[in-house]
């Protein structure tokens, strides 16, 4: 475990260094105007690169992580947006694990046409673009509103309904992934001697599935949580983007030069906030590492408990 933690720490440090090196790549912008548009051409400048990196390192040495474009500390910025995203991620993870496990139980417990269709839908959904599914879900909900369905807020991050709607959208793909993993793991247990013996004793299939198969497959399932988490982080950008949820991913996207409206007097794409990008990417990387470590610790605990 100690070696694993050291490896994770080493990888984390490497990742953060890579992020800084990428974010501060020299972009000596030259603006070119052609007919109706003005665009910037970035050229590499190694001297500028060195200067920017040394300035950033000196700033960190002085105890600051930098400021955003409005002159606010990046940490204050992070606290505001990341806390929203963390709540969203937390709720979506719970929904994904709950729905994923329930769907896997249904797929494994029953062999009829509904269970087979449910499994096919789960596998097929993973091949579809997440943003297209989210758009279709939004369209269906808006159509339901027009048919007299009780209305609730879909966009933004201030209402509970929009918050839950974003969490449900975020959990769609991870829950399908988790269901597939749990179902496969449960199936891999089938044919084991303990199951044959339990079936021989007349134990109900539902009891067998939950009390024996699921319990025995738990270490393998927990090991898959970091991958599910990666799905969740990847989908987070699309969900925050499409539901106008002002979270950490949206803020990162904004810091990268996202131009929300063409009415802005100056294009946002030239205002890339490097310190914001570095801090937010470090935040997401750290989340990934924490989930990785948590999954490893949980696997060890569950395995030890089973052996004892």
């Amino acid at each position, binding site marked *: 475990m100690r070696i694993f933690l050291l490896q994770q720490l080493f990888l984390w440090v*490497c990742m953060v260094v890579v992020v800084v090196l*990428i974010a501060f790549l020299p972009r000596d912008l030259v603006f070119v105007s052609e007919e109706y548009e003005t665009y910037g051409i970035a050229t590499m400048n190694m001297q500028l690169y060195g200067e920017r990196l040394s300035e950033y390192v000196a700033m960190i040495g002085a105890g600051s992580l930098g400021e955003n474009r409005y002159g606010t500390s990046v940490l204050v910025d992070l606290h505001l947006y990341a806390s929203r995203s963390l709540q969203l991620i937390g709720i979506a993870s719970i929904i994904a694990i709950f729905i994923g496990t329930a769907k896997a139980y249904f797929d494994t417990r029953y062999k009829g046409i509904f269970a087979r269709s449910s499994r096919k839908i789960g596998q097929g959904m993973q091949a579809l673009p997440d943003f297209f599914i989210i758009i*279709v879900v939004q369209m269906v909900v808006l159509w339901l509103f027009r048919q007299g369905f009780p209305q609730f807020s879909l966009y933004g991050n201030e209402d509970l309904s929009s918050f839950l709607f974003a969490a449900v959208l975020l959990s769609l793909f991870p829950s399908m992934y988790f269901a597939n993993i749990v179902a496969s793991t449960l199936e891999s247990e089938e044919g084991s001697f303990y199951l044959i013996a339990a079936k021989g004793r007349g134990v109900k299939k539902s009891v067998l599935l939950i009390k024996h198969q699921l319990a025995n497959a738990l270490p393998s399932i927990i090991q898959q949580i970091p991958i599910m988490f990666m799905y969740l982080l990847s989908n987070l950008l699309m969900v925050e983007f499409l539901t106008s949820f002002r979270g950490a991913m949206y803020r*990162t996207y904004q810091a990268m030069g996202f131009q929300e409206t063409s009415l802005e007097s100056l294009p946002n794409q030239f205002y890339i906030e490097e310190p914001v990008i570095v801090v937010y990417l470090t935040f997401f990387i750290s989340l990934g590492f924490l989930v990785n470590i948590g999954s490893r610790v949980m696997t060890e605990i569950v395995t030890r408990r089973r052996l004892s």
Partner: protein
Amino acid sequence: MSGPSPGSTKQVNTEPPMPEAKEQKKSYSPTKLIVKRFFANKLAVAGVFMFLLVVIFSFSAPLFVEHDPAQTNPLNTYAEPSADHWLGTNSSGQDNFARLVYGGQISLQVGVFIMLIVSVIGVVLGSISGYFGGWIDSIIMRVTDLFLIFPFLLLVLTVVTILQNVNVAILVITLGLIVWPNITRILRGTYLTLREREFIYSARAAGATDLRIIMKHMIPNAIGPIIVNATIIMAQMIILESALSFIGFGIPAPTPSWGAMLNEARSLNILTGMPWAWMPPGIMIVITVLSINFIGDGLRDAFDPKSSRK
């Protein structure tokens, strides 16, 4: 395929399929057996058929598309479908049908070229890492760890942001340089098994050079995982390109792209009142990706019949 029985990997067993009783009588070669198994898979054949339709639809555009996909017309924005504009026009007055057809060319080109780049990098690094092992393997694996742990979309976005002015070539090269770790890992796993096989020892004893062993024995026996993973990567890259274009970080306007067309659906009026503007590109992405996935599943089952899901 040359060489005796190869080993197995996590994803695809590279072992040539064991001929069944009837097939043994006809004595098919391993390649013919794979082709036969592939075409016996109805979904895979449907996938090939769907994919060919998408390719023909996209690349025969000049034959049946009258409008220039980049041509704007401020006097004819948000037009409804008509005989002149089959899918109406977008917010810039560009013909949606022309953009749909030409957008397919971009998606397919991006998918194919990234697949080629990733396969080449993956095969080279996977071969070096899996065959030689030791410190070079450790270095390559730590670098792949770095890439695999990073939230993929964020990494792509960061690089694209830094590069500015992205065109198709830059996007393809960027994505190719970011996506290689998966295939490298899988190939390394295959090679670790293969290099301990008797036929590799025999080749070494016969004086074959490392390069010859890799080219003549390792790669042909790892061709299954390479092809299957290449199809998976192609499908993923088509989705990724459309996702990047959708959020405005992909191929810039006026180049048509399915993802950019879907971006119109961010407007509530278009989302609810003009489905013809955003549904077709979404459906085209789904059809293309599903067809490639069906082909990939068919290839996986053809190379390794034991892997088929019931």
